[in-house]
């Protein structure tokens, strides 16, 4: 009878492979832990009230990132306000209206293509289209428009997924009662798909907060406080650096690494927060879906 234990070569090979698997996973975790730990340790001590609530002043020699915080907030809100109706609308068109399969394919291909374009190209295209063609100049509005185009595929995809998960019977029920298509969508399709739209928003917000290359030439590097809530002029025409762009400027052009790390720490915290929110929303979505399927 043949041997009853695994041949030595096979056993050794198996052990080596198992070890490699564990090592690579450990490496990924160590990378994340190392990065997060290092950035927070180096950055958080420099996050002060002064940094958060003033603007940088050369005269007084102080650093403040309030303008950049506000710029980021503004760009996130504006980009979301622009992309939401567009993305949700496109997803609704794809799942509810589109009649010709060729058109559906064209729109889906467009969304896939948009998802693959690197952000530096968005930066250039945004500069050509919004800053020059539409005459917006280097401004927060141009930056927001660019990022709206960039996040469009994210919103389309998540919305489309959640729309598809709405049972067909809901639609048939509503149409059977004689409601119009839009009425049907508004009353029985959109409400259960809300979680997916929210997830799309959070993912988009994450992408916008972390984006820099697409903003360099569209929203620019202005570091002073914009009173964009004061007038449309400010709103549309003043350039402003978001946190990520400011990080780049402080690190690369001003060699002020303490401020750069403080911004990095803030960005890490935002990323963590958005990630957990997205996860929470996603879990709710799945739970709801589970209920629906039962």
């Amino acid at each position: 009878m043949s041997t009853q234990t695994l041949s030595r070569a096979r056993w050794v090979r198996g052990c080596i492979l198992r070890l490699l698997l564990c090592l690579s996973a450990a490496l990924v975790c160590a990378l994340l832990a190392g990065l997060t730990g290092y950035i927070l340790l180096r950055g958080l001590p420099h996050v002060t009230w002064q940094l958060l609530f003033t603007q940088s002043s050369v005269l007084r020699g102080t650093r403040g990132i309030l303008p950049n915080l506000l710029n980021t907030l503004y760009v996130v809100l504006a980009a979301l306000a622009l992309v939401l109706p567009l993305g949700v609308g496109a997803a609704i068109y794809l799942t509810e209206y589109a009649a010709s399969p060729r058109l559906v394919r064209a729109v889906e291909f467009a969304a896939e293509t948009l998802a693959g374009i690197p952000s530096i190209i968005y930066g250039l295209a945004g500069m050509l289209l919004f800053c020059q063609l539409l005459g917006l100049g280097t401004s927060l509005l141009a930056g927001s428009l660019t990022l709206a185009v960039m996040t469009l595929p994210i919103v389309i995809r998540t919305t489309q997924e959640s729309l598809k998960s709405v049972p067909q019977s809901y639609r048939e029920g509503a149409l059977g009662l004689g409601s119009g298509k839009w009425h049907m969508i508004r009353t029985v399709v959109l409400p259960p798909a809300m979680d997916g739209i929210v997830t799309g928003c959070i993912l988009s917000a994450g992408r916008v907060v972390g984006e820099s290359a697409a903003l360099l030439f569209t929203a620019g590097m202005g570091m002073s406080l914009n009173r964009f809530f004061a007038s449309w002029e400010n709103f549309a025409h003043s350039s402003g650096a978001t946190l990520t762009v400011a990080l780049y400027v402080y690190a690369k052009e001003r060699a002020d690494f303490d401020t750069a790390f403080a911004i990095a720490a803030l960005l890490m915290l935002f990323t963590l927060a958005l990630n957990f929110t997205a996860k929470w929303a996603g879990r709710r979505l799945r739970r709801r879906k589970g209920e629906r399927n039962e």
Partner: protein
Amino acid sequence: MSEPALLSVRNLELWYAPAVQALRGVNIDLPERQVTALIGPSGCGKSTFLKTLDRMCDLVPGVRVSGSVRYRGKEIYDPCVDVTWLRKQIGMVFQKPTPFPMSIYDNVAYGPRTHGVRDRPRLDAVVERSLRGAAIWDEVKDRLKKSALALSGGQQQRLCIARALAVEPDVLLMDEATSALDPISTSKIEELIAALKQRYTIVIVTHNMQQATRISDKCAFFLAGELIEFGDTTQLFSLPRDKRTEDYITGRFG
């Protein structure tokens, strides 16, 4: 019993979860070089029982087994038994044909390669012998390098049998191996089983009682996780000792 028992099972119990018992106190001796058919209604535990014989049931999370299964006198649930050795000795063919998404040749050579055969001429010989053994050589000898997924269902199933034969097993377990096939493919595989029992011990699970009478020497009837009756096929179908067996084979339930 007159024949020497190859697999001898004592007080086998199996739980899928603490409250879900699938096998209850099974005792059976499976004889060498004979075809044993396991019959019974769906969910009676016959497939589960088959999976305990090569420990494929270990793959189900949370499963618990007690009792004893001896293969050639060796306790297979002994912790020091190497399952890869056991599964090489006791091959299995599944209900759905499951060729790997590779060429026909690579499918058959998979087992020998896994067990350390690297030598090309030897592999060629094993592949040819196994494909001939599974009565499919003539149909595929010109396209050994083509994908196995292009074969018909019946051919795929015979390929899977060839793949199981390639590791030179002692026992062949077949879990409803013909239930997904058309009648012509089924009869081909039945002929194959009749030929294979000259060299292998075969245990099949089947839903089809005609099939059991056609191809098996011994037959075991399972009901609700218990082995109700085990004996010669002719005797079990003509003169069942147990009332429940009689009810089942005369079609009162199941």
